[in-house]
């Protein structure tokens, strides 16, 4: 039990840090060719900016397809390397194999190899060294030390799982599902110095990770309103689709959150060493307060707001989601979970039951802008934050008749610059696009390049 507890704690520390950069990308080769930026009024704009409900989604225009079908070229290579008839003995899938790596398998599940790897980043090699004596413990994590954060760190997701409803005029009635999880860690100074600065573990000391994790899900009946406040000059008697949308748009949505269930755990985890350090096995420290809902339907009210302005070839918008979204859970139990060193077991104590607790949803925002320059050139960019790291994309597309050339740059979640380029050809109602983007691993400055291809239906 002791082993499992500590492994979970420190593994969590490791696994949350190296998030895959390309996870932020869609499977649309056009977006990928522009380093992730979308020049169309696609799902992202409408998801995060309710004002876009009043803007017509004109398919058929430059870069605006009705549907995109990815061509998973990466699967060809994958199945060559891992023939399905050999999965039983393939080290990738066979836990009994000496070469089986659970982290690699997890990465495969989280990042399916749909795109083709043109250039793979060198696999980071990293030696770790442990110096162990009766009263000595030094951990040298090598390059991995750079992953040990100075500040609070973690991972999270705030998603809307469905959006069902109908609209009348500018008013839309619907039901959305939401799911949110946030996991945050803070290393205490002593542990951070041991892991990051190779400072020896001191006798009679305690080393802690402070954890705060919450997961909540539910549905939210929603009433939203989007309206075109003004009609631009170009929209009056417009003779082109471009100017027909000129105007200032506003939108808002009021959500009544009905939480189905939630759980939250807060508390320190860590270990204590004696004097000498290995006079006895280090004691595991786990003292967590866990809150869980006894009944569904935590309740709360929140909203989204957004504005968009379109003037001829220029378009800009900003949307903010889940403002004031605080859920009140009327029937919650609070338990204290502790690790009993003497018994090498966990103890669970009820500290309160049928009590009221509250949770919040993080605020997300998306700001986007695009300009069509009249010569077949479209330039755009967006800034996106879903409650954590901000991601910035800037890209451009140049069209010559049926042909398109694209390029872009992005600042990823780890603040590294990434690049994209690509092209496409449109033949009637269909288009074939290819895009290449770069991405980096955690420990390597060398960028990998991935090719994505897709068919667009206009």
């Amino acid at each position, binding site marked *: 039990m002791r082993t499992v507890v500590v492994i979970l704690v420190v593994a969590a520390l490791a696994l949350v840090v190296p998030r895959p950069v390309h996870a932020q990308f869609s499977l649309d080769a056009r977006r990928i060719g522009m380093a992730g930026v979308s020049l169309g009024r696609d799902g992202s704009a409408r998801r995060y900016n309710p004002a876009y409900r009043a803007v017509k989604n004109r398919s058929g225009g430059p870069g605006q397809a009705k549907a995109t079908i990815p061509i998973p070229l990466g699967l060809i290579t994958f199945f060559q390397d891992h023939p399905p008839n050999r999965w039983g003995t393939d080290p990738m899938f066979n836990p009994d*194999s000496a070469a089986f790596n659970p982290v690699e398998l997890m990465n495969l599940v989280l990042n399916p190899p749909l795109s083709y790897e043109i250039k793979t980043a060198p696999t980071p090699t*990293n030696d770790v060294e442990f110096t*162990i004596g*009766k009263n000595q413990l030094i951990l040298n994590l*090598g390059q*991995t030390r750079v*992953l040990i954060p100075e500040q609070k760190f973690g991972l999270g997701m705030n998603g809307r799982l469905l959006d069902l409803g109908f609209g009348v005029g500018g008013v839309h009635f619907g039901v959305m599902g939401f799911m949110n999880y946030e996991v945050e860690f803070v290393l205490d100074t002593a542990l951070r110095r041991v892991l990051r600065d190779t400072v020896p573990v001191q006798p009679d000391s305690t080393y802690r990770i402070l954890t705060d994790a919450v997961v909540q899900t539910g549905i939210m009946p929603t009433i939203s309103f989007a309206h075109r406040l003004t009609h631009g000059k170009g929209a009056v008697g417009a003779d082109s689709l471009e100017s027909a949308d000129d105007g200032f748009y506003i939108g808002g949505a009021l959500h009544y959150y009905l939480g189905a269930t939630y759980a939250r755990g807060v508390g320190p985890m860590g270990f204590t060493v004696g004097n000498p350090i*290995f006079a006895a*096995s280090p004691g595991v420290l786990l003292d967590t307060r866990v809150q869980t809902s006894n009944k569904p339907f935590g309740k709360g009210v929140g909203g989204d707001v957004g504005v968009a302005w379109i003037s001829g070839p220029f378009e800009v918008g900003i949307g903010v989601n889940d403002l004031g979204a605080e859920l009140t859970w009327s029937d919650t139990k609070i338990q204290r979970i502790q690790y009993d060193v003497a018994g090498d077991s966990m103890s669970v104590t009820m500290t309160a039951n049928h009590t009221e607790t509250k949770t919040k949803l993080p605020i997300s925002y998306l700001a986007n802008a695009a300009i069509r320059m009249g010569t077949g050139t479209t330039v755009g960019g967006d800034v996106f934050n879903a409650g954590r790291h901000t991601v910035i994309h800037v890209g451009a597309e140049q069209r010559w008749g049926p042909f398109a050339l694209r390029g872009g740059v992005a600042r990823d979640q780890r603040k590294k610059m990434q690049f994209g380029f690509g092209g496409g050809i449109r033949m009637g109602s269909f288009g074939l696009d290819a895009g290449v983007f770069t991405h980096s*691993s955690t420990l390597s400055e060398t960028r990998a390049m991935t090719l994505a291809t897709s068919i667009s239906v206009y």
Partner: protein
Amino acid sequence: MKAFAVALLVVVTACGQGKAIFNVDAFSFMQGTGTDTIPYLIPPVGSATASTVQKISLPPGFGSSVVDSVRITTGNANLENTGGSGTIGFQLFFASDSAGTYTAPMALNIPATAVTGTQTVPVVITGDLSGAVDSLFRQETVWMRIAATGTNGGATPVTGEGVLTALVIRIVLQDKVL
């Protein structure tokens, strides 16, 4: 400790391929417990062997790992002879249990050193243990026996003790955890 070491290796596994290197100061666990000293008494015109056995605990979870190398990187002992003239050599044996160290093949042999009268003779104990004991170092527990083997060609007994002053074992593994 085992739990913590394995947890850290999981961290490294998540971040890239590499090696896990353990520098185990075995002497620090032996010092002051009596196992760091091997008294010897070699009868005239004869030979004798005395041993000390020490348990070495390693992180669990390396059953599937590949052991790159096992070396004694730092090892020192003093032969504190109190009488007689002869030679003393050291041999190291490793096994998965204490009794097995008495039947295991020798992993390291330190050539005999001559001693005479009352004197202290330093001996260096270093060498590569790879190959012979690789599979043992994938386990959680390894037992080590240090034997002092002496010969006496004289007419008086050779007496004294071998006192270990340093012993660091460096184990290099491909970090294949779980």
